[in-house]
């Protein structure tokens, strides 16, 4: 199998803090990887490093067998920190349209093919009606679906989805996961999907990448989601309970994932206040 993302004793520092220290792992082509870990564990930072937006301080990070390159068109990205201007009355079609060759100089142009592609992708994520609606009238979940559709456009080989389930209701979470799984299985796209809740992804993910305490653990759920591994990553005593096909990661009687998830929802509408550093 070919490695799409390869870290070899890689250290990624940001603001004088090691987000990842001496981490080594490899993600293979076509894998669906669930990226989990406590808040601030470096999920966003890892994705930004893969995008070539951060230098790795030591060791090597390889993407498609070479150093990460900023502006790589084969990577689809759904960022977690989303600057949504409060009163932006741009319709969904133009919002996504802005990203299509948005890095080119000159006047914006949307060909009929571009439009058709946007409409078709919106249809696939169950968000067709958003193409004509202004962004300022969309709920957090609707914006999220818009962004997911955008990440899928343009035949990416690698999808970096940073918390794509935030502010989606249960039904749309299922739709979102389904759409990404389909892209992964049918088009062989490698997916890094970060989330707070492991359980929703259990039936879909191939392997799980847990981040925490500057360390990374990549493996199957059985290998990684265990009390010893997670205790080291969280830096606290973690218990893992399995019941009825679900996995609960508990710390002193609290479900850490659920707590983190609730915490995130508090910020859900003001997502732009999040700092990813």
């Amino acid at each position, binding site marked *: 199998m070919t490695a799409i993302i390869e870290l070899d004793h890689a250290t990624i520092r940001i603001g004088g803090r090691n987000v990842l220290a001496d981490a080594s792992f490899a993600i293979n082509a076509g894998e669906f990887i669930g990226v989990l870990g406590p808040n601030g564990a470096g999920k966003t930072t890892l994705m*930004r490093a893969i*995008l070539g*937006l951060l230098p790795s301080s030591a060791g090597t990070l390889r993407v498609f067998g070479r150093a990460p390159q*900023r*502006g790589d*068109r084969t*990577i689809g*990205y759904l*960022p977690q*920190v*989303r*600057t949504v*201007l*409060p*009163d*932006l*009355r*741009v*319709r969904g079609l*133009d*919002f996504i349209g*802005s*990203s299509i*060759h*948005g*890095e*080119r*100089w*000159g*006047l*914006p*142009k949307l060909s009929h093919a571009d439009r058709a592609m946007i409409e078709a992708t919106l249809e696939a994520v169950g968000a067709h009606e958003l193409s*004509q*609606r*202004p962004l300022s*009238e969309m709920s957090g979940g609707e914006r999220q679906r818009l962004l997911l559709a*955008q990440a899928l456009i343009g035949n990416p080989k690698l999808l970096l989805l940073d918390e794509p389930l935030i502010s989606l209701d249960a039904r749309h979470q299922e739709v979102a996961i389904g759409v990404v799984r389909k892209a992964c299985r049918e088009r062989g796209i490698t997916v890094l999907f970060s989330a707070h809740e492991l359980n929703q992804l259990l039936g879909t993910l191939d392997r799980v990448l847990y981040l925490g305490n500057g360390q990374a653990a990549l493996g199957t759920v059985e290998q990684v989601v265990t009390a010893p591994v997670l205790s080291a990553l969280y830096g606290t005593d973690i218990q893992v309970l399995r019941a009825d096909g679900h996995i609960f990661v508990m710390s002193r009687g609290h479900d850490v994932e659920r707590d983190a998830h609730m915490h995130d929802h508090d910020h859900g509408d003001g997502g732009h206040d999040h700092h990813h550093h």
Partner: protein
Amino acid sequence: METVATTTIITDMFAYEFMNNAFAAAGIVAVVSGIVGYFLVMRGQTFAGHALSHIGFAGATGAGLIGLAPLWGLLGFTLAAGIVMGALSDRISNRDIAIGVVLSLALGFGLLFLHYYTSFATQATALLFGNVLAVDRTMIATLAALSIVTLLALSLIMRPLIFASLQPELAEAKGVPLRFVSTAFLAIVALAVSECAQIVGVLLVFTLMVGPPAAAQRVTTGLWSGLGLSAALALSEAWLGIVIAYHTDWPVSFCIAMLSALGYFAALAASTRHVSRAQRTA
């Protein structure tokens, strides 16, 4: 009879060269202001635009001190300030307090320059509130040339500018040089502000650069329709403002400011009604 009367009222105005000049200058500047302002509103940087015009006031009065035409001082100061604000983008351009401090400092310097160049004081009102009726042919040519430069520069960066405005995180990942784009844009805003100040004065640049685009964004959500409507609104408000001023003897800038506010609140009311109706049916 009535049509004859209306026609004379209109043709009457064009008997004066200063009126023709006013219409030409206001027309050129309004279109540029409406278009550049559209992006200012989209990026939520209207306050930065306001600050640039105040900094321009210091430039204009400073130019008077050393014997230059105010327009060149205005241009020099706003351009320099725009580029500095863009270069410091993360730290300053969206920070209201920093901008507020800088703009009051600039106004203070403007006052200081006026203090030392007292014969210039008569022009202070014109700088602050504009004097479109005093525009001459040379100024029109200058404004036209500046407008072409402004719109050309804007059309060169428009695509990445929109991308970077709507989705900076993704634009950065896709290779858009965010800092360059925002600096170039603020330089373009500086050009537009300098032109706009010739018509409505530094204190009222909002009337042409923010009112029309904000109104346009309330009623349309498409990019090109929004840009077109913004330019058309700015143009009609500027021209209608001159017409009203001609017949009432009120200051032109007041008339334009009034129309700009009316246009914005009308658009706001229209879109609010539209939204609440849509919510009821949904």
